[in-house]
């Protein structure tokens, strides 16, 4: 599904963050990306989303080189990117409205999609139905984050890119959403890439874990974590060992 082929990327007037970086992820896989702050996790998602482009090398999704955002890809960015002039409900509807604006043209919207604007189930699932009429400036940090998640999930993407999507949520809410993600993943043959700073979260959600090191990243360090996505993995010893191992690897980085 995802293929990075000798990708080099750096922001203008800055040192490269990825250099000759290659990485592959198959359809239906659940990946977690771990790495120190500033190592390039968000940048990686931008590359996968088609928002920035490598200076050399290629990013392919589903075999096609990426030249613009793909309508079936969902991205949740780190600082949410909510429209301040739209209510929570309108923000959640935004992606659907964009699709209806173009119609099923295959470029901006998938060739087939549900054109209904009924986002209530998503608002409800994410516990933001009661603030649906408020503006982003009038809700709490966690509510904002959940709005961003709802907005993306409402599009029913086949590739879901998430940048620390639960960082502002309390533990019970967070774990509830982790379960939700795993359900959706199981239901819909979703491919997931979740950037997280929480080793525990990576261990729970990532069947495979991509470890990024200090920039420039030249090789993809991949850790297999087959136990993830199992409801009971979190309580197992394997989980505790995995978390400890990951921590050691990160601190070594």
């Amino acid at each position, binding site marked *: 599904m995802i293929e990075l082929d000798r990708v080099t990327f750096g922001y203008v007037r800055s040192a490269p963050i990825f250099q000759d970086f290659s990485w592959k992820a198959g359809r239906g896989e659940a990946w977690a990306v771990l790495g120190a702050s500033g190592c390039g996790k968000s940048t990686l998602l931008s590359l996968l*989303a088609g928002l920035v482009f490598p200076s050399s090398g290629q990013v392919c999704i589903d075999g096609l080189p990426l030249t613009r955002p793909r309508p079936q890809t969902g991205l949740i960015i780190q600082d949410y990117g909510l429209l301040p002039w739209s209510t929570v409900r309108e923000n959640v509807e935004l992606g659907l409205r964009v699709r209806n604006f173009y119609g099923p043209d295959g470029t901006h919207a998938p060739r087939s999609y549900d054109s209904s604007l009924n986002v209530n189930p998503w608002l409800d699932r994410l516990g933001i139905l009661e603030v649906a009429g408020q503006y982003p400036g009038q809700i709490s940090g966690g509510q904002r984050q959940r709005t961003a998640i709802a907005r993306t999930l409402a599009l029913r993407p086949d590739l879901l890119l998430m940048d620390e999507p639960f960082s502002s949520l309390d533990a019970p809410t967070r774990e509830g959403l982790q379960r939700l993600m795993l359900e959706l993943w199981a239901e819909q043959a979703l491919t997931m890439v979740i950037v997280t700073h929480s080793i525990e979260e990576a261990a729970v959600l990532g069947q495979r874990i991509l470890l990024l090191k200090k920039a420039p990243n030249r090789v993809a360090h991949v850790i297999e974590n087959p136990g993830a996505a199992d409801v009971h993995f979190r309580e197992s010893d394997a989980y505790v060992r995995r978390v400890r191992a990951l921590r050691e690897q990160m601190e070594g980085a």
Partner: protein
Amino acid sequence: MKRRDLLLATLALLVIWEILAVLIHRQILPTPLAVLATLGTELLRGNLTLHFLASLWRVLASTLLAVLTAAPAGMLLGQSKRLNDLFSPVIYLLYPIPKVVLVPIVLLFFGIGDLPKIIIIFLILFFQILVLVRDSAAGLRPELIQSVRSLGAGRRALFRFVYLPASLPAVLTALRQSVGTAVAVLYVAELFATQRGLGYYIYLNGSTLFNYPAMYGGVVMMSLLGLGLYFGVDLLERRLCPWKTKS
């Protein structure tokens, strides 16, 4: 509350005016009382109301025309650095031209009715709005654009869902400016081929009849025309930008 402020402002201006008039003590600046008295009779005689309405129509038409063309153009230029680089020099060369000198050419194309007056005001407003909306659209936070692009939005949807609503406050500011400017430039736009309009009325009374109280009566009507339109813009803002007033 608002009404009290307006009253206060009006009173303060009248007092300052009175002081100035007494200080200067010349016909060119009559006292507010004299002006208001004249204003009253002129309004009753009926003609001033017609002047007012003629100007109102011209200001509304030209402002609308200017906003509806300049605002989208500004958003377009603000959206694309390439387009902006290309068109900026054109704007910068045309903006400083006093549009009044173009009157003969405008007359040639649009005859002598209301249209040429509206066009002249329109030309004056156009660049002002264009520059403001463009700069504001160009200053939009890139994260916002990226996040909406990731939802599948191309150029047109970005325009519709980001640039358009994000530029609304700038457009409203531009409207507020335009209202002021449009009314003010009536004084140059209503000098040809018309006997209706506050610009004509002020010029006639000030420069031909030397009826200064009547002239200042016209100026007061311009103030009121502007004020009324400003309230219209404020109303529009409360409708179009609820997220600003709510928070």
